[in-house]
């Protein structure tokens, strides 16, 4: 396997961390911040445009362009805000936590560069409540930066979430940060114009912001040479599931799925066969072993009928029943639906129920048709993509594994006969009754 450059995790070895500010600075830390602060905000954005950096949270929106949408302070004289989305919760994704644990200063340096770029003096980092250790590392690193007098008049507030996947959606996150229930807003207006406290706001993912630092260290044009067209740079791929060596791997965009799963991840455990791959977190369409040579970049995955999403790659071997996978994924979205839009609130629950009926051997041909119809009536009909995520995932399982779904109906039972690797997996929604959102009319 070729040696690939380490950009996000540069300066760390063997999973180690740089938690000492002096050590970080000695290795070249805060050079990028000084360089950026010597530049005009417009030049900062232009440098980022040149890097081709696109959002690592899942939407892959060009980061520089996102910043350019934030009006100049003289155009809109309100406080400007940078909000960092550290609410990593997409099943299969665990990169941001490792970034925060291992290179917290690179991440915080990126926050300060970004704040300069959008002319903001206020940074809020919204970190999921389950990340206790990560919160402590950021708190201590931030204190070290404050003591080193590097904040430059910028306040950075760490705000802890409290267990709600929906707060990873940017407008729900802003609602939550304002002290409300985390329910998405209608767009437009977009956060760039009316975000936090109805003021201009850029919302960026942890990995995107961390990557900003090396972009200014090496220069945007140099960074853009890494990766492939439309997908510059490296990506921290989270590899999990039925694979010999799961973990986070920083690799350039455009490596093949085969290289990631087999050369880097050691392949599926002996005696089993690769069946399916979820390439970008649980909300992306499933691929099969036939897609193994697909390149892991934005364009290639769209062409393959899926998405790079959050680059959370879940490997699934031949022991897994795809109806059970559908149930488990749908249960997740059902549990996390905020309840605001009816198609999502009712539809995700309905999808789970139909899948359960098929898995139990009580499903008919009409149920399979109904399943597809319900998914179709969720898609594109809500304020945010949460319901769509359930529908996209489940539709792809039926599409790619139609024979297996059909077999459940024809046999009147699960063909795995109780031997599926997901057999009997419990649903938190059933165990946290007081947090359930019972639809008023199903």
């Amino acid at each position, binding site marked *: 396997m070729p040696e690939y450059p380490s950009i996000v995790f540069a300066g760390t070895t063997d999973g180690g961390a740089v938690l000492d500010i002096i050590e970080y600075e000695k290795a070249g830390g805060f050079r990028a911040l000084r360089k950026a602060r010597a530049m005009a905000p417009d030049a900062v954005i232009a440098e980022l445009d040149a890097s081709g950096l696109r959002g690592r949270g899942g939407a892959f929106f060009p980061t520089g362009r996102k910043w350019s949408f934030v009006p100049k302070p003289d155009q809109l004289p309100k*406080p400007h805000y940078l909000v960092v989305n550290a609410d990593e*919760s*997409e*099943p*299969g*994704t*665990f990169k*941001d*936590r490792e970034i925060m644990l291992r290179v917290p200063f690179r991440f915080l340096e990126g926050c300060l560069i970004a704040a300069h770029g959008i002319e903001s003096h*206020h940074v809020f980092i919204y970190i*999921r*409540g*389950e990340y*206790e*250790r990560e919160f402590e590392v950021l708190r201590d690193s931030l204190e070290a930066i404050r003591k080193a007098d590097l904040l430059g008049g910028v306040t950075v*507030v760490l*705000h*802890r*979430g*409290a*267990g*709600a996947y929906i707060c990873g959606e940017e407008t729900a996150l802003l609602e*939550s*940060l*304002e*002290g*409300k*229930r*985390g329910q998405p807003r209608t767009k437009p207006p977009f956060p760039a114009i009316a975000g936090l*406290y109805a003021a201009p706001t850029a919302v960026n993912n942890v990995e995107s912001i961390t990557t900003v630092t090396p972009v200014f260290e090496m220069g945007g044009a140099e960074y853009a040479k890494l990766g492939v067209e439309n997908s510059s740079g490296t990506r921290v791929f*989270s590899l*999990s*599931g*039925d694979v010999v060596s*799961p*973990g*986070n791997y920083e690799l350039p965009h455009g490596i093949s799925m085969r290289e990631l799963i087999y050369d880097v991840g050691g392949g599926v455990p002996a005696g089993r066969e690769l069946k399916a791959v*979820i390439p970008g977190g*649980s909300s992306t369409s499933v691929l099969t072993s036939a897609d193994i040579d697909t390149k892991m970049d934005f364009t290639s995955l769209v062409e393959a009928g899926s998405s790079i999403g959050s680059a959370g790659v*879940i490997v*699934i071997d031949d022991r897994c029943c795809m109806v059970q*996978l559908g149930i*488990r*994924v749908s249960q*997740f979205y059902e*549990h*996390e639906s*905020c309840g605001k839009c009816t198609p999502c609130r009712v539809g995700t629950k309905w999808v789970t129920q139909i899948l359960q009926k098929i898995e139990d051997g009580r499903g008919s041909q009409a149920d399979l048709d109904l399943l597809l119809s319900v998914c179709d009536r969720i898609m594109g009909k809500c304020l945010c993509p949460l319901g769509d995520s359930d529908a996209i995932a489940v539709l792809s399982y039926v599409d790619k594994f139609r024979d297996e779904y059909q077999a459940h109906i024809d046999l009147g039972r699960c063909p795995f006969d109780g031997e599926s*690797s*997901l*057999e*009997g997996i*419990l*649903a*938190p929604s*059933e*165990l*946290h009754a*007081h*947090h359930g959102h019972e639809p008023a009319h199903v």
Partner: protein
Amino acid sequence: MSVASEVQKLKKRYPDPLSAVMPALQVAQAENGGWLSPDAIREVADALDLTPAYCLSIASFYDQYYLEPVGRTHVEVCTNVSCGLAGAQQVVEAFERELGVSAGSTTDDGAFTLGTIECLGGCGWATVVAVNNRHRLRVQAEDVPGIVEELRGA
């Protein structure tokens, strides 16, 4: 420090004091033995000049606010896809056996609450088990008796 004075400090961190409601609920919950009783909710409401109903609407939305008493040790097993593929169900069952309760309930002596939880963001280190919000990684069913023994002794 009292909840009320802690909340006054939190309010100063934000341009709008309403933003302090989540951290304030976290403080009140920690002070109240890990759950939000009606009195604890009222304390937050008073400190932020909000109604208890508003604070309850926030507390009921987020999974990490508990509206019923929880055990001194709170064990939560991730059962999402990657942990499920690694045997999370067997881990849940092992905890049920060792603790003598089913998932979603608390032991009679109030020592343990056992639950399952959605993705904890540790898919590459499955199965992830949160013990009082501290993550233990790569837990397998056979590790569970030792973990419970350790937690009982703690």
